[in-house]
């Protein structure tokens, strides 16, 4: 393994090299200090009741846990990032499997987990060909394994759920890990996660203040058309503006392409959220899990990243390329 690859995978001393990363961490620290002050202010001015306060503190505490878990691996190195995405994929699959009942089909669950390990290997190896090949191979394997229950009634359901889960939480989520194969991965991943989270926040704020017509009342009762449009506009501005720093000097760095990137990010983020809300409504559940007080499960938190990660990766990949300057087949070709 050459020195550059080793530094990308495991070198944490270059974590703060990019100005964008330093600014982000400073901004994050500021937010983490200001939010508790705001919560205390709400309490002092009597604008909130005890239950509301408890909920706000629970949410804040959950964020204190999320943030190091998400940002830590990205700062530590590409190797840690890929490993963290693998763990997240498996935990998200677990939530989906428990909510749909798929978890009772242990052979299918085992295959999906093995598929996620295979994807992780392909990503770590920087072997895009294998990453792509795993999808049809896994579809075949899941369809095959489900035969041996010898229970054709329900065959389509268990195969389809297994494939859907693998594609969403293995392949789509795995694209988040594939970013780590680029030298610029830290900026890109932080930018992606920040913009997707802001997208949610903008949709909420604009919806609360200006929203009247509901977007999809049966699917997501709190979402409004105004919120969706407002988020699209605001996120595009922020994503394009911040993107100028992250993608400066690359083929993405033209006003039109940056704006288009923002639009793609905003829509894919909102659609990911709505898609998982549709799944929840079909199942008749309110939250994916009770893991994080105030938030629900991992999927409640990360649903917006599901479609955004592949959409942004391929957009940037098409224009500029992802990891083209990095050595491919790190493990399989030495």
């Amino acid at each position: 393994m050459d020195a550059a690859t080793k530094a990308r995978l495991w070198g944490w001393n270059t974590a703060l090299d990019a100005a964008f990363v330093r600014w982000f961490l400073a901004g994050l620290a500021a937010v983490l200090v200001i939010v508790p002050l705001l919560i205390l202010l709400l309490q002092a001015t009597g604008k909130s009741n005890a239950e509301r306060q408890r909920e706000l503190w629970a949410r804040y505490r959950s964020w204190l846990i999320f943030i190091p878990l998400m940002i830590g691996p990205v700062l530590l190195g590409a190797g840690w990032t890929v490993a963290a995405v693998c763990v997240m994929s498996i935990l998200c699959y677990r939530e989906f499997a428990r909510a749909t009942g798929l978890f009772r089909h242990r052979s299918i669950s085992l295959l999906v987990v093995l598929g996620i390990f295979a994807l992780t290997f392909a990503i770590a190896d920087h072997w895009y060909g294998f990453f792509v090949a795993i999808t049809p191979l896994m579809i075949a394997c899941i369809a095959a394994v489900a035969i041996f229950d010898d229970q054709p009634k329900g065959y389509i359901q268990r195969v389809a759920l297994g494939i859907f889960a693998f594609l969403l939480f293995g392949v789509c989520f795995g694209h988040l890990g594939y970013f780590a194969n680029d030298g610029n991965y830290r900026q890109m991943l932080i930018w992606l996660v920040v913009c997707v989270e802001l997208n949610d926040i903008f949709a909420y704020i604009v919806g609360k203040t200006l929203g009247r017509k509901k977007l999809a009342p049966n699917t997501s009762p709190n979402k409004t058309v105004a919120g969706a449009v407002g988020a699209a506009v605001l996120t595009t501005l922020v994503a394009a503006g911040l993107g100028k720093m992250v993608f400066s000097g690359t083929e993405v760095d033209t006003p039109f392409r940056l704006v288009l990137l923002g639009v793609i990010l905003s829509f894919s983020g909102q659609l990911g959220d709505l898609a998982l809300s549709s799944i929840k409504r079909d199942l008749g559940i309110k939250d994916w899990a009770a893991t994080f007080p105030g938030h629900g499960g991992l999927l409640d938190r990360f649903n917006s990243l599901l479609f955004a990660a592949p959409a942004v990766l391929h957009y940037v990949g098409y224009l500029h390329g992802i990891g083209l300057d990095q050595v491919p087949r790190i493990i399989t070709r030495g």
Partner: protein
Amino acid sequence: MEEWQYKPAQDLGIGEMERLRSVKRESGLAGFLARKTWWFWVGTILRLAERIQVNGAERLPAAPPFLVVANHASHLDVLVLATALPRRLRDAVFPLAAGDTFFETPPMAAFAAGMMNALPMWRKNCGRHAIDALRHRLVSEPCGYILFPEGTRSRSGQMSGFRPGVGMLVSGTAVPVVPCYLRGTFAALPTPARWPRSSHIALNIGEPCEFRNVPNEKNGWRIIADKLEQEVRRLGEVGAVKSG
């Protein structure tokens, strides 16, 4: 198009700690693999360290639901019983363990629930709710339980009376209850001891009983407990006569 049938996990929406102590806990792939590993190692070590003889394994039901009851004198009891079950039954069995002993602290609860797949039975105030949930689960999942109706480990090695709780689980149902007698576990690991000694352990498995016509109330439970106690004592005498 016909709608699909979804059956979410019964413990969905419960926090992790509460889930480990819930009778509705359903385990997935990780739990299954943990249990397989645990029972593989326990089975191997038991076979190497103790001489175990199982009589009457052919009397075990072919598939769930089932309830295995036995005399209780040692922590080894549940290990011997579970490893004596065929794989099909062992994969579906939940030992019912004392809540105050095995589910009090988080690490203990994680071990009991995660490795042994145990479900809690609270000795002090076992709510009707919990018993009904256990009863429903036994029949509908279907699954199997291992239960020690004495309610506690014997301090002397002698069997004491069976409590009526066992009746609450099976009265009025067609669930086969398999009486078992364990000899030698008290000698191998009595209550205050921390490490097992090598010993000869015998497990006598009796004919399953059914209580579908017994009413689901106090009298019925007493009838069931007494009948099972009688059967288990009888199994205890069978072995003793043989070995002279």
